[in-house]
């Protein structure tokens, strides 16, 4: 794997470049195929795609059932963002500056859904709602998303908090502002960027979430669950069309998130692992 010399032109380095290209191809080919076949007149499958058409998109735009679920998903995601950001901010502040009994357990518990398979979060919440005799609905899904995504918000905001110079807050107190004013005038403005970044990420993840929602679904579907139930009935290029739109939308949000995140940090690489390696945060 290691090259015999550092010059990029050396043969081993060339092999590595080819290998990396293949990995990129593996990552992107399926997505590309999906998008291409959303324009295929003869449906999904077959090769080569022929009879380019926009008719699947036309059908999609007339499909009210889909758009209702899009609205549902947007509402769920928006409230999940509010829950996750509020509690994530508080949790990050608590982890950063408060010491209380059980703090280590609290940290692990908050971050656990980050790595825990969605089925466990989904099922245990289902049991809670059943025990509380709550009817399954978009509300239960929202609570589920909010709970699962506090982990993401916490790690993102915690990372932002590490970059905030504690002396800033001391300066504010020193200049006569109490803790409450300091929070609004100094702490929050300094965390603005990481909070927006966290919100974008939570929104994207909630919009795409399926494993937790799967168990908490009531009568109204979210978009991913609607797609899921349609898949059971068979593949149609209309699903390719909506998937392509989801894809583009997600990519846009992720890129904005990435820009925001790297703007506050000189080291792009250190950014994401703080989310991924949540259990070490």
């Amino acid at each position: 794997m290691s090259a015999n010399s550092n010059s990029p032109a050396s043969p081993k380095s060339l092999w590595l470049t080819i290998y990396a290209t293949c990995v990129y191809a593996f990552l992107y080919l399926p997505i590309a195929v999906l998008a291409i076949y959303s324009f295929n007149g003869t449906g999904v499958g077959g090769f080569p795609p022929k009879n380019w058409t926009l008719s699947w998109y036309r059908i999609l735009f007339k499909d009210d059932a889909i758009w209702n679920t899009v609205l549902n998903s947007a509402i769920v995601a928006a409230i999940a963002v509010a829950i996750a950001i509020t509690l994530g901010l508080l949790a990050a502040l608590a982890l950063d500056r408060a010491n209380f009994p059980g703090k280590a357990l609290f940290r692990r518990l908050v971050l656990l859904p980050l790595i825990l398979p969605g089925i466990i979060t989904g099922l245990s919440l289902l049991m809670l709602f059943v025990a509380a005799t709550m009817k399954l609905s978009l509300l239960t899904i929202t609570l589920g998303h909010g709970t699962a995504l506090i982990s993401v918000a916490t790690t993102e905001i915690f990372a932002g908090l590490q970059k905030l110079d504690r002396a800033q807050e001391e300066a504010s107190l020193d200049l006569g502002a109490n803790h409450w004013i300091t929070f609004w005038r100094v702490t929050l403005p300094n965390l603005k960027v990481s909070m927006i970044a966290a919100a974008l990420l939570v929104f994207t993840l909630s919009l795409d979430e399926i494993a937790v929602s799967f168990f908490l679904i009531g009568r109204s579907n979210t978009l991913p669950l609607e797609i899921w139930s349609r898949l059971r009935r068979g593949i149609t290029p209309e699903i390719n069309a909506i998937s392509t739109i989801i894809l583009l939308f997600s990519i846009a949000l992720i890129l904005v998130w990435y820009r925001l995140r790297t703007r506050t940090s000189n080291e792009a690489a250190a950014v994401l692992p703080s989310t991924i390696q949540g259990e070490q945060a």
Partner: protein
Amino acid sequence: MSALLSIRNVVKGFGNRAVLRGITLGIDSGEFLTILGESGSGKTTLLRLIAGFERPDSGEIWMADERIDELAPYNRHVNTVFQSYALFPHLSVFENIAYGLRVQSTPKLEIPKRVEQALAMVKMSDYAQSSPSRLSGGQQQRVALARALVNRPKVLLLDEPLSALDANLRRQMQTELKSLQREVGITFIFVTHDQEEAMALSDRIALLRAGTLEQVASPREIYATPATAYTAQFIGQTNLLKAQIRNGFASSSGMTWQAAASQVAPASLPASDDGPAKSNPQSRTEANSPSNATFSLRPECIHLADTSSNAANNAVRFAARVTNQTFGGATDLLELTLSDGRTLRARIPSRGTIEGPTQFEFSPQDATQVKDSEPN
């Protein structure tokens, strides 16, 4: 005289580590006091206790007739210039300075006037709308000063504010800081590890060592009559002579001089009545029984002896070999080796190379008896 700020037997530790072990110190109104110490001596902790970011484990801090150690930072008439300046990056220079006025509900109409005065005072009027991140270190320093002073605190705390500046700017800021302090007449408490800076700026220096005050005195006193060996070594360079005292005469490495009991100046006593007074040297020895003592002799107090005449004024004359000579511009630093192998450092006006055994002398008044310091 009752002090503006009085620190009474303050103790502070973090976990098992004792950081301040009973500090008592009074600071007068309008004074420029420097807390000097090595890193880890507790000087920043002392400052943070005064500012209110930490609470003492025991002891009290009073400002005039008000006990302040239990007040929140925002309820104290104290402002701080932080080591990193801690300017708010999301606010303009103007808004940074206005911050304290706004959060303390100063009348709206008064704010611009006071901010502009403060900006003018630190010669930063042209930068009112700039973002702090666009300013140089020296400019940020001025804004931090203005932001603190605009609130008209009774005491201004400065936590190594010059340490981030390069040497030239640093000297310039020292001068400005000193004249600014005279202008506003506010008490400054300045923390630094740089003894030259402390000497240049201060009315008094409080030398802190491992959580206790070693000596509190004016720069001249502390230099001329250091109370302890540690002080003598920390402030300037010195030679420590281990001597034996008998019948009021000290002898060391074959040199003998009269150790006057009066030579420890009462002026080196700290301002407060108790506390560090115990660190004063116990120089008054019993008349007949010999005892050990340590003397501090500054290198510049050792002179080349004029061998054509006898030693005047009880000057102590001794022979030594010059084993090293370092050219330092106006003066040379010599390393002298005595006949018993001990070495002394001397600073003499620059002249040609000195070779072979040479006669040197010093005046007994310049040998200050100091208290031995316990090793750190």
